[in-house]
């Protein structure tokens, strides 16, 4: 199940990121060299950004890559650590599922108003529904971690 999630979300976010890179390259290159830009490239980048961020979010939770303070760990007994992490996963899941509900409602409002992107006229609502579904999926990932008997150590992402 985890491998399927890694494959689907990884491919989705990775391909979207590659597309942003290629789109920027050809758009800027076209504009600077032959004075021709890709129509709607800015909007496409915006939509692809949603895919990059929200499709990768379940993977961040799955791998425990969120920034956490772990300085207290050495003072807690292993049993207490497991209990603590269970509580944290439930809290994280509740927050993310709540956020998914909020975004679902927002998507409904966008669907009703029929708001589109300015140039290419893509309907925005499906992307916001996508945000909602992926937030809910990330919440489920946290609930799934409850069943894990081992304590997961965070992996530092190279953000700094």
């Amino acid at each position, binding site marked *: 199940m985890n491998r399927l999630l890694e494959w689907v979300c*990884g*491919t989705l*976010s*990775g391909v979207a*990121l590659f597309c*942003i*890179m*290629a*789109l*920027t*390259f050809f*758009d*800027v*290159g076209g504009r*600077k060299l032959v004075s021709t830009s890709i129509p709607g490239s*800015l909007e496409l*980048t*915006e*939509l692809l*950004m*949603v895919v*990059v*961020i*929200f*499709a*990768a*979010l379940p*993977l*961040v939770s799955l*791998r425990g*890559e*969120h*920034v*956490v*303070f*772990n*300085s*207290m*760990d050495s003072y807690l007994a292993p049993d207490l650590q497991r209990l*603590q*992490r269970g*509580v*944290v996963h439930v*809290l*994280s899941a509740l*927050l993310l599922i709540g*956020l998914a509900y*909020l*975004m679902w*409602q*927002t998507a409904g409002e966008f669907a009703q108003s029929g708001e589109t992107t300015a140039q290419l006229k893509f309907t*925005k609502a499906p*992307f*916001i529904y996508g*945000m909602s579904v992926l937030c809910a999926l990330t919440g489920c990932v946290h609930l799934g971690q409850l069943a894990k008997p081992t304590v997961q150590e965070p992996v*530092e*992402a*190279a*953000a*700094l």
Partner: protein
Amino acid sequence: MTQALLGFAAIFLLASLRVPLAFAMGIVGLIGMGIMRGWHAAFASTAQVVHETGFAYTLSVIPLFILMGNFVAKAGLAHELFRAAYVFIGHLRGGLAHATIVACAGFGAICGSSIATAATMSKVAYPSMKKLGYSDSLSTAVIAAGGTLGIMIPPSTILVIYGIVTETNIGKLFAAGVIPGLLTALLLMLAVVVMTSADPEHAPPGDKSSWPERWAALRGIWGVLLLVIVVLGGIYGGVFTATEGAGIGASGAFLFAMARRALGWKSLLEVLVESARTTAMLFTLLIAATIFANFVNFTSMPGDLKEWITHLGLSPVMVVAAMMVIYVVLGTVMEELTMVLLTLPLFFPIVTSLGFDPVWFGVLIVMVIQIGLISPPVGMNLFVLNALLPKVGLGRIFKGVWPFVVVQIVMLAILVAFPMLSLWLPSFMR
């Protein structure tokens, strides 16, 4: 004031319970806003922040610079950089340590991450230093300290984040980081000179290279130079915006990696997904920090703090110096990105109201992060080196890094005292 203080206390409580910091900031910001403005407004503003941050074109600069750094690391350009630095200065006492710092500065010019710079250099420089008999504490400390140059010398992920959060021009921030980055590199090298004078047998000189060898090594770094000139020159010269420059840089680094056969389909997808994960992690923090900042801005805390500082009668520079002391102390025990995202809503309005340039403050913020990254007991670069070189041991890494921490604190003081070091280059930009 009380509401905001309660908010900060709640974040620290949740964070110490190991709730991811992004979630802690998001929960506290949402609840705080709900209590102060009503739940309907709190939910509406949260949904708006999530939606607007997700759909922001300008924020694509973040994944693109991360991607550029990851492609560059994969392409193995660090080996050429280290080789080029070594053939020129490797024969000096402590020459490999000097070469590591120069190579880190060069790598920092194409990679915006301190951790990635330190991790990459540990694979390139440590084996050479070990072979020549350098002490473990000096070798690891110099890599950890040199790695921090990755975030000062542009491009820099943290300068991009600072620019986005404070709405400061990213191109100017990048230009501002150049001189402080190079000066920091020089000071780190000075520290190596002092350390190796006291303990010369632990840092023997390498072989002297001939001029043909030196020219050959320089030819090996043409790719790095080209990327630096196109991306940073383009942004600095006003040819590209930072976002466009990031896209060109990522594409250029991708083409280099492909040309050097460093990327297959599998490793390409790995690099893309790794970059996307880092992006998602950072955006979660950015969204949560915005929700929390919205709450703090609704409390009376920013105004009260300004009033309190005016009442104290301190000179403006002393106020900034006091902030820096707080940051250096916090940086020894806190994760640096969180420290900055949590404190910016409070400190930034004070700094601008005192009449200081946000670009200068951005450079100071990067400097305190650099210090935090190598300050024991909680220094991310030290942990990364410990993870990559477990045989060395954290104790020896801690022991070796102190002179570099001191040097960086001196550099911070210089930057506070002489704002022109940061603001001279940006002054030429339109």
